[in-house]
């Protein structure tokens, strides 16, 4: 019996999601967010 489409093998994602580029982007974002919060709360 053919497997139903919902039981067909699913692709697995590579684990390499946290690349150096991603980490740099998150770092820049965190600095900007912190600056925005500090300026906003001091206003």
């Amino acid at each position: 019996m053919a497997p139903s489409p919902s039981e067909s093998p699913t692709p697995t994602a590579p684990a390499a999601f946290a690349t150096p580029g991603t980490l740099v982007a998150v770092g820049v974002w965190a600095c900007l967010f912190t600056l925005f919060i500090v300026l906003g709360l001091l206003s």
Partner: protein
Amino acid sequence: MLSYLADYAHLWSPLRLFHYITVRSVGAAVTALFIGFLAGPWLIARFRALKFGHGYIDERTGALGATYFDKKHTPTMGGLIIFISLFGSVVLWAAPNVWTVVALFVYTALTVPGWRDDYLKVVHKNKDGIRSWEKIAWQSLATVVALGILLWHPQSKAKILELWVPFFKEAVIAHMPWWLLLVLLYLWIVGFSNAINLTDGLDGLATGCTITVALVLGIMAYAAGNSIVAQYLLISYVPGTGELTVICAALIGACMAFLWFNSHPAEVFMGDTGSLALGGLIGVMAFMIHQPFTLVIVGGVFVMEAISVILQVGWFKWTKRRTGTGARLFLMAPIHHHFQKRGWPETKVVLRFWILSLGFALAGLATLKLR
């Protein structure tokens, strides 16, 4: 933060333009659109490379499975496109104040559980995503911290305790207890998060409806932040909330860019990364401009979708307890699937719901004058 350039208008007069909310709102919308168009294709290609599709068919879709089979490899987590566009644009164009900080904080705090939910679904193939207690914990944390900031900051602490309802010329409660505000804010943030999450079931549906809501909220924020307009319309004047217009404009730009890729047949879904955070953002902004109940009208499509699920589940449980067999009010819930099951093509459902959303938005806007 470009608003700080206006302080140097005495050196070069065109810099005074950065003082105007209208100018910065246009800039924010265009910037968000631009970032979205740039980041969208790159992120979608990356999601595809990482195989960030659900990879399974949700059995709850039943007879709609054939439609969903085509979508099972469409990457999700597209809410990141909206997040990057909106965040970049807002940091650039909005003046930092307590209102914009709280709005960005809630948006970020709800993007995290949404992202984790999608990550567990697409990477670990966990159909249930994050545990419900974890989602509730994030939503509670976002609400409590947001309220804490609003009650602590001198610019917001008195104003945030006023409760306004449509059609009334004055606040119905001038100084509500903090716990009542906490309950209401939590209900709005969680309620609209989940409502947009439920609406996000068809290509472009949640995104299109969010654009109309953001448009109306932007107009209302401008009115609430302008003493002359607020006095003329007999609505609450909340100094500083005009800056939320910039956030609404950035939201419109970001959603327009996302919709470009999310339109049928979708190249990407926003996933919980987008839906949870967008709901929280519009919920908290409505509270800050004293229009929480107007949001129920303006976001009528989201409310309708949520109510359809509540009614469907409630009716099923009630009839099962009384007769032993559960009956259904709709062919399927949320209600957009009911119409699909009645044979409407997906694009027809989406377009008609957009028309409804526009109608709700205009009705909500009309409440500004009916006082």
